[in-house]
Structures are given as C-alpha cells and as structure tokens.
C-alpha cells in the first residue's frame, strides 16, 4: 500500500553527513585544591538534585584552580559519582597529556567551544514571496522552505527540512530530501499532486486525502505519511 523509500526521490543520497553543532555541556569548576574536598562537595551536590551531571556531558574546568600534580584523583572522584565526564579543560600541557591517557578530550583553557566543523551546514531557511507557478521548481538544500503564496499544479518545491506553504498546496512537495524523517509539510489548503518526506511518497491518484482542501500538517510516522488538520 505504502511505497517504500525511493532513492530517486531521495535526490541526494550520502552515507553520512557531518554537521557543526553546539552540544550543551556542563562545566564543572572545582573551587578547592584538594581532591577529597572536591569529591565530598560534588557528592553533596548530586544528592541535592544535580542529576544533570550524571546524564549530560560534563567538562572538568581546571582554569580557576591550580592542580599541581595528578589529574587522576579528580577524574576518579567524578567517575565514582557517575558524572559523565567527557573532557578536561586546562592550559597545563602535562594535565592535558594525563587527560588523554585517561581517555578524555583535552581542551585548551581559552577555547570556548569546538568550532562548527562545516559552516555551510548551519541550517538556513529560504523564503519565497508569491505563488510558485506550474513548471517552476524551488529547492532549499540547507533547511526549511517557506512559501508565502500557493504552489500551483505542475510546480515542485523541495527542501532538506520542512516545507511551509502559506497558501494552497496544489503541486508537488518534497520535504526531508536528504533523509530527514522528522521533516514536515505544512499548508493552508491541501490539494497536492504528490507529497514526500525522506523519500516516502504518496501520489494524489493513490491517496484521496491529498485533496482534503483543509489546513494541516503531514508527517512521517512508522513509514507512513500521516495528515493532521490544524
């Protein structure tokens, strides 16, 4: 009944994608020089509801205190308390070396966060003013596509992200063309020729619901395109 993901509609298929991101991490900054006091304070904090330290990535920031000899007891304190330590931030080369030996990432003290791996990948929305006419094609490969008008029969609009149509959707619309299954299609009036999300498509001949004529949103749920009106 529902056609499988189609490579042809998946306009560009790549085995992996690299995206720059700013993941939220928690900075843990010791204010004492003795590991034992640090551990006690940390344990107390967790018991008071510092559960974020145990679920989200944590960076041990040693910029404020001088940890002279070994990193080992500090890291052990964290690990014993199930703190999800992923990196140590310090300017001291020996400590950076120790961090790596302990299986952690060593960050420079001045480094604020990892730079985006590829600036081009920052999502960018494209906005089109007016009606998309039959024979025209509009493509946004960097994010969402917003159409302030209708998409007429014979027109085709495609985006790697969501597609918003603030008018009637009478043509073909493809969202998530690079495989984003979370992508959605929004319209003020659904009367489409074809809709597709991440290569899963539905033609108007096979699906009467494409001609509901009402406002709503199409999403991909368990390999099926599902329409819900607003």
């Amino acid at each position: 009944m529902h056609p499988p993901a189609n490579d042809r509609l998946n306009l560009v298929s790549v085995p992996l994608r690299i995206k720059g991101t700013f993941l939220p991490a928690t900075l843990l900054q010791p204010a004492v020089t003795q590991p034992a006091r640090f551990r006690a304070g940390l344990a107390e904090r967790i018991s008071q509801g510092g559960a974020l330290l145990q679920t989200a990535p944590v960076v041990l920031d040693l910029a404020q205190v001088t940890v002279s000899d070994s990193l080992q007891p500090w890291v052990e304190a964290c690990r014993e308390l199930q703190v999800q330590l992923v990196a140590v931030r310090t300017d001291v080369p020996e400590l950076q070396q120790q961090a790596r030996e302990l299986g952690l990432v060593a960050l420079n003290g001045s480094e604020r966060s990892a730079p985006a791996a590829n600036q081009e990948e920052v999502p960018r929305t494209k906005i089109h003013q007016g009606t998309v006419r039959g024979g025209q094609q509009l493509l946004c490969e960097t994010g969402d596509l917003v159409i302030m008008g209708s998409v007429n029969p014979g027109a085709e609009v495609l985006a790697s992200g969501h597609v918003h149509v603030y008018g009637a959707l009478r043509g073909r619309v493809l969202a998530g063309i690079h495989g984003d299954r979370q992508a959605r299609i929004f319209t003020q009036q659904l009367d489409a020729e074809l809709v597709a999300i991440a290569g899963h498509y539905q033609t108007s001949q096979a699906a009467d619901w494409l001609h509901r004529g009402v406002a709503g949103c199409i999403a991909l749920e368990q390999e099926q395109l599902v329409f819900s009106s607003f």
Partner: protein
Amino acid sequence: MAKVIVVTSGKGGVGKTTSCASLGSGLALRGHRTVMIDFDVGLRNLDLILGCERRVVYDLVNVIQGEASLQQALIRDKRADELYMLPASQTRDKDALTLEGVQQVIAELSRDFDYILCDSPAGIERGAQLAMYFADEAVLVTNPEVSSVRDTDRIIGLLHAKTLAAKEGRKITEHLLITRYSPERVHQGEMLSLEDVQEILAVPLMGVIPESEAVLTASNKGIPVIHDETCDASQAYRDAVARLLGEERPLRFTEYRKQGLFSRVFKGGR
C-alpha cells in the same frame, strides 16, 4: 516612452488575437497612439481580424532583416486614427526573428507611440518568449477551463524568469483577461467560475469577456468586435480598456440570469 504590453496565454485559440485587436482599437479610440505587433510568424491573423490583410506589403521580418523601413511596413487602421499595426510574415521562417531585431523595432516604435501591444503566438517556446521579452505589462488571456488556466500559470512563471524586466529585477504588471465566459455554463458546472480562475492564478482581473456570437461575426467581417457597440463583448472590452487605463468599472455579464421570453425575443441571444 511607450508602454509595452504582451497579450499572451500559453494555450492556443483562447482569444489572444481577438483581444489584442479590440484592446488596441479601444486604446486608440480613447486617444492613445497605439501600435500592435503580430508575433505569430507563419500564421498571420491580426491583419485579418483588423480587415487590413490586402494592404500588407512588408512585415516584421522584412523590417528586422533590413529589407523595409518601419514606416513602409506599418499599416494604419481604417477605423481608429491613432492605431497602427506591424504584420507578421506568412512565408518566412520564425527563426528569422532575432532578439536584437525585435529590440530595435520596439525601441524605434517607443519614440512615436504610447502603447505597443505584442500579439503572442501560442505555446511557451521561442516565439512566445520573444513576444514577452521586452514587456512592461502582460495581458493574460485565459478561458475558464483547466488546461487554459494551467498554461497561463506556466506563462506567468516565464514572465518572472525569461523577460528583460525579470533580469533587471523589475516586476511586470499582470492583468488577467478571462475570455469566452459563459455564466450559464459556469452555473451548470461545465466551466470554471471566475472565482476559481482568480484563486489559482492570483493575478488582478482586468476583464471578463462573455462568449458571444458577435465575435465570430466581427472577425469574419474584419472589424474588431469592440466597434460593435450593441454587443456585450464590445462593452466588456471597453470596460477592460478603461481598467487598463486605471479606471474603476464594475464587472458586467458575469452573473447567470435565467432568460425570460422578453429578453430572448429582443436580444436574440447576443
């Protein structure tokens, strides 16, 4: 500087030439110096509708190829003083039209006229694109049926992409002209309604010309239908000309009224 207006549609036989002749005549009757260029090379029929086919000596291709001057090729209309036309060639290949040639002709006409109307051939290919290339405004002739509406929609896409105005970032002023409109057939659900057409095309309406036998009669006589003041189509074209000139006119001949015996007898179904 003249205003260049293309009369176009995509689909063939919807009433471009009929409309061009009547709009051009209407503008001239209102005192505007107007010239019409027939871009339908090979088919030539604007001259037939104007009834000047026997006065054609030179044509657009001759002018572009340097075989005749504009003055030699221009034909003056018998009925409206301010109206001229530049006929298409019946014999020459349509590739004889060049963009540079058309540009020169339009630039030269621009100095002497207020309006230049370009009667486009059907289709979306080179001929239609040449006719629209230098346009400032477009009259989009559309019949109230699905295929005509879709073709007009495609033409609007071309106006936004393939014209000089588009390339220079200017916007072409678009006017929707619905022709061969039959309120009765719309009422019976056999034709798209005015509202349906407008909703899809989203272009300001310049006029609705009713389906009328007077159009064919006028064409056969070689008199643009706008001159036959007794018929609805003429009145509707006059309204359209007024709107093109920026005047406000209420829509007429678009409501379905069941005809009584009285009007049937006295109006003869016109």
